[in-house]
């Protein structure tokens, strides 16, 4: 395990060094050409930026190893800082409340996550942005009682954003559409073994744990009313409609091995985002699509600060320009 972590650290360091030496033209926060890509609530966005995200979510799901429904409420915070115009580092954590009904309650911190993202392609004419990244969930930095793992998970990732502003004029009302996608491979540094614990005070279940490789993939479909008003047709939409982006997210994940190959879980999240000059607000429903009970609808709420717009001459500028 130590060799794998060391090798990953070396690869990460090497990739960071290369990224520092090679840059693509800087983009404004999430802007490529006329397209603004908002920060989605469940799917990582494809651009680098200076931003602070506060996300709250609640969901119900069938308990693992306990009877009845488990209600989880989570408050997460993520801060991203551009090192160069194309490279950003991020740090994130979350505080989670778990109510397992008869299985007891627990609250505590999830593991600390650090990551980097490198944006290597941006095309204004095709409203396209492509990035790669690596996220590390550092084991043993959170509370086991709320499900934080003892081991580290490394997640290389690929991100893509594509706006359809380049469609011909006959399809102009589809020009406000955009797609984003994120593909990650979650690599646990421990494959299995050890005692299993599940949430809730006074509850312990022993057995062999298995930690499979997991492919986490998600995409969003967005329709920007702001883009429609500003670049396609003024329909007279008033505030706040003229700053809204309608979106549907599909966050999914599939286990790849260790007895769980093919196990898939995911949801469909319809929602709306409002974009202001300093911040972005979003709300979504989380409707189980696969792997969870269909009636257990959750809610996500996002407050997202555009640091590069709030502090353009100081905190919001890349460290290396």
């Amino acid at each position, binding site marked *: 395990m130590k060799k794998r972590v060391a090798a990953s650290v070396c690869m990460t360091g090497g990739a960071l060094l290369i990224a520092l030496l090679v840059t693509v033209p800087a983009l404004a926060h999430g802007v490529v050409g006329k397209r603004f890509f908002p920060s989605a609530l469940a799917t990582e966005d494809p651009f680098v930026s200076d931003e602070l995200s506060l996300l709250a979510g609640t969901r119900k799901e069938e308990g693992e190893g306990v009877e009845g429904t488990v209600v989880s409420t989570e408050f997460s915070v993520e801060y991203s800082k551009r090192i160069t115009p194309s490279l950003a580092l991020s740090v994130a954590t979350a505080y989670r409340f778990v109510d397992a009904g008869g299985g007891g309650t627990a609250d505590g911190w999830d593991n600390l996550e650090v990551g980097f993202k490198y944006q290597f392609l941006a095309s204004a004419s095709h409203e396209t942005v492509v990035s790669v990244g690596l996220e590390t969930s550092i084991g043993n930095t959170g509370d086991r009682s709320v499900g934080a793992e003892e081991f580290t998970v490394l997640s290389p990732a690929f991100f893509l954003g594509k706006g359809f502003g380049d469609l011909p004029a006959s399809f102009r009302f589809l020009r406000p559409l955009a797609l984003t996608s994120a593909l990650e491979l979650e690599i646990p540094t421990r494959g299995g073994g050890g005692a299993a614990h599940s949430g809730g005070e006074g509850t312990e279940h022993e057995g062999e744990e298995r930690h499979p490789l997991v492919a986490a993939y998600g995409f969003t479909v967005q329709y920007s009313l*702001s883009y429609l008003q500003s670049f396609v047709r003024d329909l007279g939409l008033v505030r706040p409609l003229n700053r809204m982006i309608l979106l549907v997210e599909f966050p999914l994940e599939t286990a790849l091995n260790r007895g769980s190959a093919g196990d898939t879980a995911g949801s469909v999240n319809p929602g709306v985002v409002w974009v202001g*000059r300093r911040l972005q607000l979003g709300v979504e429903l989380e409707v189980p699509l696969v792997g969870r009970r269909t009636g257990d609808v959750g809610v996500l709420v996002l407050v997202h600060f555009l640091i590069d717009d709030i502090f*353009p001459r100081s905190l919001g500028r890349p460290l290396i320009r």
Partner: protein
Amino acid sequence: MNMSLVAARSASVLSAAVLVLFLALPASGHVTPERAEPAVGATLHGPPKRVRIWFDAPLDGSSELKVVSADGERVDRGDVRVDSADPRVLEVSLEDLSPGVYRVIWIAVSRDGHRTKGDYTFTVRKGRRP
């Protein structure tokens, strides 16, 4: 007191304080268009004399605005300016336009130097001059 309740309340208070702090800061950042004359995608029965675009924040004098025909030929008079009475407005006057489709191309520069660009079209049909 229940620790979960304390943590939830603390998080709520902190979030509210951060939100108030950031909203109290002076406006900055990228400007976006709010409306235009001719309107985005509009069809006019007669040629307009000028193009005006209202943005959501004051503009810098280095902002740009031009209008081109379907052939790519420039049809504005080159006198682009930020309205002295309302610095959120960018305008340029036009030559006599024949019926056809025209493209408005703009680069809006905010007072703190952020640049936003965009374009839209409008159509002129035969009709009375406004």
